[in-house]
């Protein structure tokens, strides 16, 4: 169905074979790791820069403003200018802070988001590693970032930071459940935990369309829970600007602050791409029916465009949330999870299991 020119499996395999031909398997693996690392590093930086710019533009348009418009045409180089500023800023040493943990925390946060990106299939055959338990891997790794946040809050010896960190801990622990359970509904449908397998299962239609209402419900729950898990508004209690000045990263400056900042955006990208992979067919094009002209036109659009297009739509929705709603209070945040999202999710899974047993889905 998909065109072979858009299949990256051949490309990656030929690179692998080429490397193995000139060096020993161990060195080939090492070179591949370095290559992948470089590619992801560049991708990471580009996506980060773009997302920061996108968020500033989105919030500006929502608020009747122009947004960045000074550096470069329509301000597209603004984030690069900001990055240079952040790189050159002084790193303020904090008295009485736990130096080691204080310095390590931003790296933990950023490494966690780095690890999660490895499992994301950008196109057919274009992923660093295809676990057979891909979903579990992503869930597990994406919640590692909170360790960094907790450390940052605890080690900076500031009361605001500590409250922020504790809030973040409570928040991630609760919302992790909903994220996992809402993903599980699709696992039940698809019958596999491998991300590539889930995408393949959507070749004849995305799960959000063919999964009836339960997939819809799971998608909404996943959107809410993942927004909360990435500490973004209206769930940005960990940094709650009006209450805790800047929450867990109050004491950070310069490039260390930039790491937190970048990690927040990358986490958003990761959860959005997970939503796309699980619910919206990943890199699969949009199809209606079978074999008609519309489907053929859709097939010509490269999968990478499909993937990033869908991801940015989801990211836009998350930004839309942030710039519309007031922030929740900590107890309401937990109420929302334990009294609303979790029961809904559990019933949803039961319902899905029933549907699958009876074979009533497409």
């Amino acid at each position, binding site marked *: 169905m998909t065109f072979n020119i858009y299949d990256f499996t051949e490309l990656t395999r030929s690179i692998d074979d080429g490397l193995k031909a000139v060096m020993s398997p161990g060195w080939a693996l090492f070179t591949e790791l370095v290559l992948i690392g470089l590619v992801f590093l560049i991708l990471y930086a580009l996506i980060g820069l773009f997302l920061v710019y996108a968020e500033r533009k989105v*919030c500006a348009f*929502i*608020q*009747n*403003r122009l947004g960045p418009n000074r550096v470069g045409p329509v301000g597209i180089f603004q984030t690069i200018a900001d990055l240079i500023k952040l790189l050159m800023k002084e790193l303020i040493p904090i008295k009485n802070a736990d130096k080691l943990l204080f310095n390590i925390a931003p790296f933990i946060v950023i490494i966690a988001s780095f690890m999660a990106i490895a499992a994301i299939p950008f196109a057919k055959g274009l992923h660093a590693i295809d676990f057979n338990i891909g979903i579990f891997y992503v869930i597990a790794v994406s919640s590692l970032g909170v360790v960094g946040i907790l450390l940052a809050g605890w080690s900076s010896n500031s*009361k*605001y930071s500590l*409250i922020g960190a504790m*809030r973040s801990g409570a928040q991630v622990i609760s919302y992790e459940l909903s994220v996992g359970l809402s993903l599980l509904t699709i696992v039940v449908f698809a019958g596999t935990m491998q991300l590539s397998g889930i995408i393949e299962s959507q070749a004849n239609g995305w799960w959000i369309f063919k999964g009836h209402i339960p997939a819809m419900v799971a998608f909404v729950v996943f959107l809410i829970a993942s927004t909360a898990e990435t500490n973004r*508004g*209206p769930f*940005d*209690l960990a940094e*709650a*600007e*009006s*209450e805790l*000045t800047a929450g867990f990263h109050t004491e950070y400056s310069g490039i260390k602050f930039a790491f937190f900042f970048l990690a927040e955006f990358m986490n958003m990208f990761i959860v959005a791409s997970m939503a796309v992979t699980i619910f919206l067919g990943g890199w699969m094009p949009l199809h209606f029916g079978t074999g008609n002209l519309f489907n053929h036109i859709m097939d010509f659009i490269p999968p990478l465009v499909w993937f990033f297009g869908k991801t940015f739509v989801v990211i836009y929705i998350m930004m839309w949330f942030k*710039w*519309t*709603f*007031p*922030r*929740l*209070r*900590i*107890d*309401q945040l937990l109420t929302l999870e334990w009294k609303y999202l979790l029961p809904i999710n559990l019933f949803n899974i039961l319902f899905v299991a029933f549907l699958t047993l009876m074979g009533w889905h497409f």
Partner: protein
Amino acid sequence: MQEEIIKNIILGEEEDYLINVGPQHPSTHGVLRFEVSLQGETIKKVVPHCGYIHRGIEKMCERDTYPQIIHLTDRMDYLSAHMNNEAVCLCVEKAMEVEVPERVTHVRTMLDELTRIASHQLWWCAMGMDMGALTTFFYGLRDREHILDIFEESFGTRLIQSVNTPGGLMQDIHPGFQKRVKEFISYFRKKLPEYDQLLTDNVIFRERSEGIAPLSREDAIQYGVTGPSGRASGFSCDVRKSEPYGIYKKLNFKEILRTEGDTLARYKVRIGEMYESMNILEQLVDNIPEGDYTAKMKAVLRLPVGEFFQRVETSRGELGVYIVSDGNKTPYRVKFRAPNFSNLFVISKLAPGYKIADLIAISGSLDLVIPDIDR
């Protein structure tokens, strides 16, 4: 004995988790400091500390002549600058028994209501932002710009008009004043429902404000909480009704009263007042009487010996101006009964038992302007 009290109040108990909200904090709209003792996220005690921008306006007034005092009062509650000016002017006019032309009282009342709307708009922006809805800030300021343009066209300044003088106004309104006010009202009647859609009806906002920190009517009176915050508790404290000045006596308007007294009620009173102020403006805009824009005043004003008190309703509550004159051209003593001063201290009664996020919402709903507290 003195030291013992200080120690008790500032330090609290040993195991308390104390944090400072302010003086440099994004949600204290000015330099105010709350010393908050927490247990987890729950507030045990709040002690407000003020005086960071105390400028001694009352002392400065003692060396200034009456026209000079007026521009100092702008700097107290800068968001209701015109009402503050008017309070001093009314007090001086009452003391000197000056008959002010009808055009002046008319225009002053219109400016009062415009200032009130502008102030409530800014409050709405900040309230939303305190709650974490950052977009409200831009919508409110966008609409407020229209009022500031009206002020700028007529009087040349935006936030602080400095247009009142004992006996009238410094300059007449611009010929385009009425047209602009009408345009503003028709514009704002369209935009105000958006405020409700965006924030008032929002389920998160409701959860955060409904039933939070209710203030009973008795407590409101005991603490002297006036203005919209007092009226939300059912304390009918509108000076425009109880001791009418200007032409409020002739006007047909409602005093917005609610009985719940919680954060949502305080919010809703202000939204209601914006509608009510537009009603007042509509009654006034078409029939501004012709005439002089100032009464004939002597070059040097001397008040007769005595004491004079004038109450005015500003956008935050009741402002009282108390002037003691010994017959000189400068007053002997001036006291401003600032509305925010009384409104501030009720927070140490309201906040305990609620979460730290609620403290921000409560102080937002009390709508404090710090220079008015410190003076």
